[in-house]
């Protein structure tokens, strides 16, 4: 009882907070702000304190960093082998070269010599091996260690039968040799993830609470005192940084309540307390009108996709015609302008436009424009007759109600389906998607950890990502719709075995065309539109990165 009433009140409060906030600002018409560019080439000046708010991360110690907030901190504390720009282009960071043998079973990384952690310890190959081994160890129970799963010896570390990483070796202090048990010609892309960070000896095992709260790294910044949980994290410039040094003296990160963080961030920005902020959806239009003309408005389609997850192995959406019918019946443009006020865009692919080279505009033909006649014809072909019950699950608390209702209404209007909407808490929804009695479709979203289309296609659609538990028949992987197509699997395999990047991208594009364009294994809906306000009056070179965080290492005073 207590639980339900508390939850109800939270929801009421959150809604009310938003409503009141929305009223407290005057109306205004939205005009085009665009990205500030004028400040990008300003002369750089050292000094200053940059302030922003985030929600409490799960971890800032690289062994378990997972969400964008944790990544914001960890990427400023640690620099690994590679870095990625906002368009998903990879480049060397500490690595001087990264090469693989012909069948991509062995990778060799040459590491920049003579660099140190902020405590003076050398960043050599041993430091990388230490970091990777520490994260993969059984006792770490790391949520992100699976990114290391291709490396030989990962299984033994995970099950506790080994303590050293068999596949890693260091012929000398600046050469790291990685032997893969699962061949991968784009393994180097993974090393962008913070779990591939080097750590000093002082880190100890993953359970070292002192290090968990005050990691010592080799990044552009270092911690000033330990993480004050739920309160703040303070970073200061690391003057021993091996690459281009940061200009900011300090970064003060306030930790905010997750229920209304965007509201608090925006209020803090308005009050001059923050230099960078997210905004509540309700206030986007007004904020754009206010900050757009001042060049303080940031608006872009980020690395991520919102889509419907149809259950493809049973139920009404088992046939691809049925899934295509649903996709054609949805008027995405109407929802984009009606519900999202243009702050998200119609998705025409699964691999988002943020992946410049791999993006195929319109690969999801059924996504581009609503086509009622095609939808009806396909539905008839699939036996998706008017009155058919179609389950549609979504998670509450994410603000999805409005567009979910709109989609359901469109399916009802166009196809006459009896759409049964159910809003349940997130974990409950995921559990439901996984069980072998799942049916219909679910609201879902995905963002890539590293910039390869494979990081969308493989986890979401490969047969090997279903991970059916032999006892319960529940799925344990991320392919919850349980799409399985040998031709698609073969293409993915071919892609990871292809060394030439352009060639590989083409294969991925073929795979996406097959799974999305033809089989409609997922139903893309909207892009991941992101909006921020940033104080460009005070700061130069302020922009966003691949993980949707401000570019702290580049920002400088005006």
């Amino acid at each position, binding site marked *: 009882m*207590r639980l339900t009433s508390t939850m109800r009140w939270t929801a009421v409060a959150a809604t009310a907070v938003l409503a*009141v906030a929305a009223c407290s600002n005057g109306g205004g018409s939205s005009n085009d702000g665009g990205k500030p560019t004028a400040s990008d080439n300003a002369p750089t000046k050292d000094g200053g304190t940059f302030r922003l708010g985030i929600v*409490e991360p799960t971890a800032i110690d690289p062994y378990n960093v997972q969400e964008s907030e944790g990544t914001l901190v960890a990427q400023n504390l640690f620099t690994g082998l590679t870095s990625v720009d906002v368009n998903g282009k990879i480049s060397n960071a500490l690595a001087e070269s990264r090469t693989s043998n012909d069948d991509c079973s062995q990778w060799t990384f040459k590491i920049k010599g003579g660099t140190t952690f902020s405590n003076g310890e050398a960043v050599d190959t041993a430091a990388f091996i230490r970091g990777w081994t520490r994260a993969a160890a059984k006792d770490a129970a790391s*949520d992100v260690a699976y990114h290391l799963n291709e490396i030989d010896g990962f299984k033994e570390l995970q099950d506790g039968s080994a303590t050293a990483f068999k596949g890693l070796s260091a012929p000398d202090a600046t050469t790291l040799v990685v032997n893969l048990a699962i061949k991968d010609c784009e393994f180097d892309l993974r090393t962008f993830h913070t779990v591939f960070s080097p750590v000093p000896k002082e880190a100890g095992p993953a359970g070292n*609470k002192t290090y968990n709260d005050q990691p010592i790294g080799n990044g552009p910044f270092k911690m000033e005192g330990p993480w004050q949980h739920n309160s703040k994290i303070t970073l200061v410039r690391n003057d021993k940084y091996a690459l281009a040094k940061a200009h900011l003296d300090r970064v003060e990160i*306030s930790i905010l309540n997750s229920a209304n963080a965007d509201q608090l961030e925006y209020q803090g920005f308005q009050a001059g307390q923050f230099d960078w902020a997210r905004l509540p959806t309700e206030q986007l239009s007004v904020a754009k009108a206010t900050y757009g003309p001042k060049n303080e408005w940031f608006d872009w389609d980020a690395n991520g996709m919102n889509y419907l997850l149809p259950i493809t192995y049973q139920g009404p959406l088992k046939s691809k015609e049925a899934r295509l019918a649903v996709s054609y019946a949805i008027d995405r443009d109407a929802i984009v302008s009606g519900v999202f006020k243009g702050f998200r865009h119609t998705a025409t692919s699964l691999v988002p436009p943020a992946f410049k080279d791999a993006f195929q505009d319109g690969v999801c033909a059924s996504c581009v424009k609503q086509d009622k006649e095609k939808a009806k014809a396909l539905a008839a072909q699939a036996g998706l007759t008017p009155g058919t019950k179609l389950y549609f699950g979504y998670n509450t608390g994410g603000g999805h109600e409005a567009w979910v209702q709109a989609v359901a209404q469109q399916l009802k209007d166009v196809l006459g389906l009896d759409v049964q909407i159910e809003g349940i808490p*997130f974990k409950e929804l995921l559990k439901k998607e996984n069980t072998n009695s799942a049916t219909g479709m679910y609201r879902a979203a995905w963002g890539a950890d590293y910039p390869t289309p494979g990081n969308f296609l493989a986890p979401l659609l490969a047969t090997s990502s279903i991970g059916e538990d032999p006892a319960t028949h529940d799925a344990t992987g991320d392919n919850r719709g349980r799409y399985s197509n040998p031709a698609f699997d073969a293409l993915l395999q071919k892609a990871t075995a292809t060394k030439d990047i352009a060639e590989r991208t083409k294969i991925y594009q073929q795979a996406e065309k097959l799974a999305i364009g033809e089989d409609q294994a997922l139903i893309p809906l909207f892009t991941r539109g992101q909006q921020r306000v940033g104080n460009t009056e005070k700061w130069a070179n302020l922009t966003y990165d691949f993980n949707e965080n401000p570019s702290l290492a580049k920002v400088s005073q005006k």
Partner: protein
Amino acid sequence: MGRYLLRRIGQMVVVLLGATLILFACLFVIPGDPVGSLAGSERSRDPAVVEALHKRYGLDKPLIVQYGTYVGKLVQGDMGEDYTQRRPVAEILGPKLVNTSKLAVAAIVFDAVIGAGVGVLAALKRYSIWDTVVTLITTILVGFPTFVIGMLMLNLFAVQLKWVPVIGDPSDPAQVVLPAITLAVIDAALVARLMRGTMLEVLRADYVKTAIAKGVPRREVLLKHVLRNSVIPVVTYIGISFGGLLGGAIITETIFNWDGIGMAMSTAIQQQNNPIVVGVATWGVAIFVVLNLVVDLLYAMLDPRIRLS
């Protein structure tokens, strides 16, 4: 008195055990694996990691065993480890309890001083313009939702006037004022009305008339006879209200980003971070039964006719 206390404490233990058992059972029947996916994300956890976490948190054991282990550890002061950050629950909740208590004490002082004071004055100057104004304002305030007051104050004093920061620091005493007033305003209005009502009743009582007829000075009548007798229901109200405040104020804490246990509870429920949920709820029940006892003891002190037995 001693036996009474002992019996009440015995009852408290039973209530606490019962409440935690019910909570445990509730959390157990909620569908969804609390450690099945990454916090706030749709990424599945590796089955091996899920298994390891089930073991670590005892989630592979039947409900009653889990409960037994929990109570066994609880009496040693160990509230377990949370699911997302894997830190000791006591370590997580400790500073939050301090923050919530600061807010609760400040709010209750405001309640008692302003609420009761205004109520007394209104009763003494009955039907005066002052009384009418108090009645009017308190009636309006009682009907005001907390979040409206909170949002208005934050927007005015933090965003517009910039007298205080939007993102406050609970360790700065000056910054407790806004959230405390937000939290207390409605209660203070209720206390004022309650105080006025009971005071008027007592003022009409025979023993007060007698005292005045006997020529006891008005000051003494008011302090010794009227106030002491009319304060009893107010004390009960404030006591129970204090208990509620110590249990965390989700709305106020959320608006002002006050890192208390109300906020912890709302986040933990969304994440199915059950050790935190059980920890906060257990604290809420404990504080409630203890304060009930304190109120009952205070009764006996204030009213000699009440005997504890």
